[in-house]
């Protein structure tokens, strides 16, 4: 039965199915994941300079090798401040990224849905 179908028709059909399934996967999975992959680099870049995690890990290390009592007291205070600022900036970035994601969802990801929906809404 299959042998009766010309080769190019089989090939075009297979390719079309591949194209469509690929598009669905791209739209549903790769696009949103790709967005987050790109978005998260902002946090990574910030962390590379601010080192919130490294500071938190060395919370009780005195600053600049100052092992005096004052140094030991001041160290954690400054470090806590830095960690807090870091967390806030990370959160701000995250919020911006979420807003960006929502915009992406609304204007790109759901574009086909809006197309279909708007097609059936009669203009006033």
């Amino acid at each position, binding site marked *: 039965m299959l042998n009766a179908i010309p*080769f190019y028709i*089989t*090939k075009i059909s297979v390719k079309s199915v*591949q*194209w469509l399934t*690929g*598009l669905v996967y*791209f*739209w549903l999975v*790769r*696009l949103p994941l790709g967005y987050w992959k790109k978005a998260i680099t902002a946090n990574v870049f910030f962390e590379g*300079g601010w*080192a919130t995690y*490294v*500071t938190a890990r*060395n919370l009780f*290390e005195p*600053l*600049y*090798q100052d092992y005096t009592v004052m140094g030991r007291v001041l160290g954690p205070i*400054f*470090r806590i401040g*830095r960690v807090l600022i870091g967390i806030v900036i990370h959160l701000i970035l995250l919020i911006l990224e979420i807003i960006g994601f929502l915009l992406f969802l*609304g*204007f*790109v990801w759901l*574009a*086909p849905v*809006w*197309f279909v*929906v*708007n*097609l*059936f*809404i*009669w*203009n*006033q």
Partner: protein
Amino acid sequence: MESAQVEINQINCDTCRGSGWVNSLDNACQQCGGKGYVQEVRGIKLYWGEKMRAVPPLIRKSIRRLSAIIEIGSWALGLLFTIVGGLNLYDSLKAHQNLKPNLHFLFDLFFAGWATAFFWLGLFLMVVVLYHRAVFMKRKPISLLEKDYQYILADQFKQKNKPIAIDISQSADLKTLQVLANALDLAYSKNQAPNTMHLLYALMMDSQVHQLFQKLEIPVNQFIKQAGRDMVFNQATKNIALDGTYKNYLFQAFWEAVKTDEPTIKPKNLLFVIISQDFFRPILNKYTIQAEDFHNVSLWNKYKNLKVTNFLSKKSYKKPPHHIMNRSWSAVQTKTLDQFSTDLTDYARVGWLLPLVNRDKEMRMLTRVLQRSSKNNILLIGQEGSGRDAMARGLARRIVRNKVPSLLRDKRLVKLNVGALGVGGGDGSLLKARVEAIMAELIKTKNVIIYIPDIHNLSKVKSVTSMDIISFLAPLFSKSVIQVIGSTTLKGYRRHIEPRGEFAQTFDTIKIQELDKENSLKVLSIQIPIMEKANRVTITYSAAEEAIDKSRQFITNKLLPQKAIDVLAEAIVRAKNTKGKSLVTKNEVLEVFSEKTGIPVTKIGRDEAEELLNLEREIAKKVIGQPQAVKNTAAAIRRMRVRIGESERPIAVFMFLGPTGVGKTELSKALAQVYFGSRDRMTRIDMSEFATPYDLERLIGDSLGNVKGQLTESVRINPFSLVLLDEFEKAHPRVWDLFLQIFDDGRITDGQGRVVNFTNTILIATSNVGSRLILTTLEQGISIDKVKPQIKTELMKKFRPEFLNRFDDIIIFNALTHENIKQIALIEIKQLNQRLETEQGVTVKLTDQALDYLAKIGYSPEYGARFLKRTIRDKVEDAIVVGILKQKYQRGSEIVIDKHDMESQNR
């Protein structure tokens, strides 16, 4: 990874001839299951899954055009929809009060009605086209560096859970597939069965491959013509397919890519495979190129667009940004250190440091020592230009890229500018204060590894308190509170560091050796793009190769690759300024060497083989009556030069034996002219002046430099010359021992500890040992060959056998015959004529009787032809001078001198 240990079985299907299909692409071959050509490795079947066939060029072109039209159309449509729909949307939103964003606004935005549906459709369409272009159509080859491939050749191979068949075409670059398609189409259009030539031609169409040929100075069209000349082209079969022959090439390219850690099979891999075929060897030989050269040139492109290439080519003195605080706020500010140092990690962070070539072993040792808890200081010992600084730069790059053990992460590698430390303080006290401040900062900050180049220079500095810097540093270094990488030369280490036991003990040493030719080429492949960009020139591969080869031969006081880089820099200036061109070829490099060494460019560039073959003929023109000596000398030099690998010896070492005036010096001069291009390239040393052991100093110089070494200085200044050691037997045996070393190693250390290289010299010792015997033999009319053993015995009595063995040949000169003297006289008269003609406009001619008479009185058995010149001056020149003064001869006249004219000169 070693593929040699893995057995590879090849299976080529006979039915489909390796293509995997019969009649049409979808009809898989029943015999082989559609795989066609298979290589079986450790039970895994590797095959080329991508089925290809030739397509008429018109169809392929049409398909390409159609898909381009569809793609551009979709983009245009998407954009149009978005704009039109967007305008409609804006229109409908205008009805909203003041366009304030609220829930109603949002509702109106997304549910505006059918007229705005175009806007969403347009957006959707554009993303779909993007998907089609960037995802669906983009070929994403499976990287060969992935585990799926790497385990095939891994030592710890386990069959369990591994695939039984792998399609290697999944790892081919899109360009490789295009090359294959082009090759098949080409065969189709010519109605020929596809062969290597079609593939080569298709490869040439690839821009990267084309560039490789350009860099190698190979004219592509000429190359293809020559390659195709002997190729057999068969008539095309019904289906032109990717068959077993092509697949074999592809598999070779695959293994090549796997072995060289390339992620995909690229057209250049295919090119390397094709070029390496035996068939191409004679053609490559014509261009004096090897298949390996293509590999090296391909490296050049790799480094072309690096950030460091752009930065260094601009010759900028910009400093990279320096962060006072480190990430964890644990380090201390290092003000004094920053003032007198360069932070290499700062440079590495912005990508301004060059990559390191072939120092993996040394780098492993370096990081291992730096991790230790004690004695964790390193001393890099090597000559200037051996790459000690490059090691430090390499470490900085690794630190920044986190490619170092955890203990070294986040560290700063700082290069101390020792020269700047002492500036402004005459007595050394300021220097000491600065060093102390720096050390205090280092101890406190803990995150700095300090690199002190030429650390031995520190020992030369003493402060007013008479305590030198090293005495101050040694205890600090030994406590491991500071991590130091020092660099020094072997001489500096021996003289200044080793004697200071406590200081030397704090270091572990790593010797940095000179790079070999192959790795020097790699360094050049990094350096050349920088030079090209900075000077806006193109440097050909042969220029680079020649710079390395010739600098190895002619520049002995510097190391590779630095000396080759210096030569190329000069060649660039020469090409640009003198010739006004932007292409630096082999010729410019040769000209630089000619200028540096004083040897004519024709000599340097000439094929040495040709020169060696003509050696005998050239010398024989100048030396009369010594055919055997000439023959032996030429043969010995030939022997020496052809013996590859023994380059650590002088070019040749001879001993010339024979009575005075038989042509020993003349042969030496002729040799200097033929081999080094000038008779002046000869240093003559009278060895009878070195008859006592104390004379050795005059030969190699004294340690303070007051007495210059007669031998060492002349060879240092003129390393490409002939050294004639006259009356060698009269020197003191201790002087002979000195030469024993020169003859053997081709080098000697002079009084001041500098190594003088003799590998570009010819050494000739002359001796009168056995002269009496030769003369007696001559008087008795016996052939010299018969007394040779006796002469050798006499030599053995004089010199030790191990000494005589060092000579490449001991050549015994004949005594001259009357005929020889006549020939020599003729040569002398010829030279006299040249002088006379230019200065006085007259020529001289000797009658046969006159020539006979001249030869008779100009020669004596005891002094040979030594007095011939004087006799010609007395008998011929004087007669002419008197005639000229008396205005006897007019310009243009020929003076004929007869025997009695000369006899009358006696009176």
